[in-house]
């Protein structure tokens, strides 16, 4: 019961603070692709994989006071910050969480920019393709972001380091 809500709270408990909704979307997606069993369904949107279910669930957790959401107007967009509240911590105590330990992965993800995570998550979305095809696809669907070869290399390295954490 409410396993998906509890799983998300567990993530916020590990992350302590997440700055930016886009970053949050990509962090959960990358963790999911690395075997953390989040239940939220993702689709490809303009900025890479995106989950409407995740957005709604985070809204719910904030409405219920289990997460604290703060906003900052950045003129062309609004930036959101999320932290878990005491009520959220309290809620989690009722759950036996059987999730794998992914604390280290969360810390790796937190250090990265949302632009970089957008690149990584898009690459993971096309992971069934060959490496060259993935890069070609990224250049096509993310023309405007203009990712450099250097960023691509870093993204592949990052994907590898995430995989190693799973082993």
């Amino acid at each position, binding site marked *: 019961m409410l396993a998906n809500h509890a799983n998300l709270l567990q993530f916020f408990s590990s992350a302590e603070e997440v700055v930016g909704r886009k970053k949050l979307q990509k962090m959960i997606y990358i963790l999911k692709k690395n075997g953390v069993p989040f239940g939220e369904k993702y689709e490809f949107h*303009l900025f890479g994989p995106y989950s409407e279910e995740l957005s709604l669930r985070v809204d719910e957790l904030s409405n219920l006071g289990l997460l604290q959401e703060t906003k900052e107007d950045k003129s062309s*967009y609004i930036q*959101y910050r999320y932290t878990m509240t005491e009520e959220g911590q309290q809620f989690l105590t009722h759950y036996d969480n059987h999730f794998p330990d992914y604390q280290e992965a969360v810390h790796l993800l937190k250090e990265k920019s949302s632009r970089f995570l957008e690149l990584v998550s898009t690459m993971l979305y096309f992971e069934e393709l060959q490496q060259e095809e993935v890069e070609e696809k990224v250049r096509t669907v993310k023309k405007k972001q203009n990712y450099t070869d250097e960023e691509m290399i870093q993204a592949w390295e990052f994907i590898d380091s995430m995989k190693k954490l799973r082993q």
Partner: protein
Amino acid sequence: MAYRDEKLEEEKVFKDPVHRYVHVRDRVIWDLIATPEFQRLRRIKQLGTSYMTFHGAEHSRFNHSLGVYEIVRRIVSNFENRLNWKKEQRLLVLCAALLHDLGHGPYSHSFEKVFGLDHEEFTRKIILGNTGVNHVLRKVSASFPKKVAEVINKTYGDKLIVSIISSQIDADRMDYLQRDAYFTGVSYGHFDMERILRVMRPREDQVVIKESGMHAVEDYIMSRYQMYWQVYFHPVTRSAEVILTKILHRAKALYLSDYTFKLRPEHFISLFDGDITLDDYTRLDENITGFYFQSWLEEEDDILRDLCERFLNRRLFKYVEFNPLLHVKEMVELSKLFYEVGIDPEYYLIDDSSSDLPYDFYRPGEEEERLPIHLQLPNGKLKELSRQSDIVEAISGKKRTDHKLYFPQDILEALPDDSRQKQRIFEILFQ
């Protein structure tokens, strides 16, 4: 003449209650409609279990797919000769519109949840696999099926094409809002689509709306908001869906525990085993699932039999507003009490929240999550809708959360009145 340019000798029209007529002139479109995979959509309801609440809501994904095609046909016709519009994309976007829901199965939402399926993945597989649809598309060109799949999957390079099929003001939503309103009989859901189509403008990477059309778009956003709460999220519909989901869970659990069904559920076996093939999937429709639900009325298993009887005869679960996030202890206690009186809470005590549904609200593109609706100002600049419209701003910022708890009140009422557990269950549920 190349197949892609072939026209029918005479234009074909489908009578349609929403758009009056759906016009088909392209041979490719006509041939796609005739494929078994597209005809299958006649046997899948657009609104799943909503017909339990709104008896008129029996319309199919076939109706809706034709409707989306018709809207896109009109959009494309308006875009002809406009800057940024590439005529050679016409057939691609029409095919994508027609085929965008091809991978939906019966009661998609419940099936996807229980069996871990993804209808978009099946749409892609039908388009790219050895199917009638693929055969038609390949006659256009070898790479054409892949392009159509990419547009539907939103990974196609030309974002303008993608945004016609899938954005926050796209042909898909414009059709389903009006069609669902028509068939459910509600008075929400109506907006001036003709006006919106007239003020749509193609930009390099998205469709935008001329500022003068803002009020028509406001109406569309309001329709969407009202339809969400009044139709898509109706608690009775959700009750039917909860039961349907539990039927699937129960049937799967029985199969995995080597239960012997009186009639082996052949069509479900690969679903239960988690290795469903494309052929298995396209054989599934609501006629097939209805047949099994009917046959499961004869099963020995009390839970499966009872759930099927409830679903088929509309003996749905009752519900109360209940926020389990704030009442975790009571939820735990309720589960325990249900067990004590011999009712399995796994199947008969279900919490359901608004985030469990895939329908979406307008989001003004906070931090560029999703492409928002942009208005094109007279000077050519773009402005996000909620920053120009007070009405949209008001409902975009408003978050509503809804949680309900579903249970079989009839079974609970039948418990002995002096039962301590019964008294406590009612106290928690109705306090």
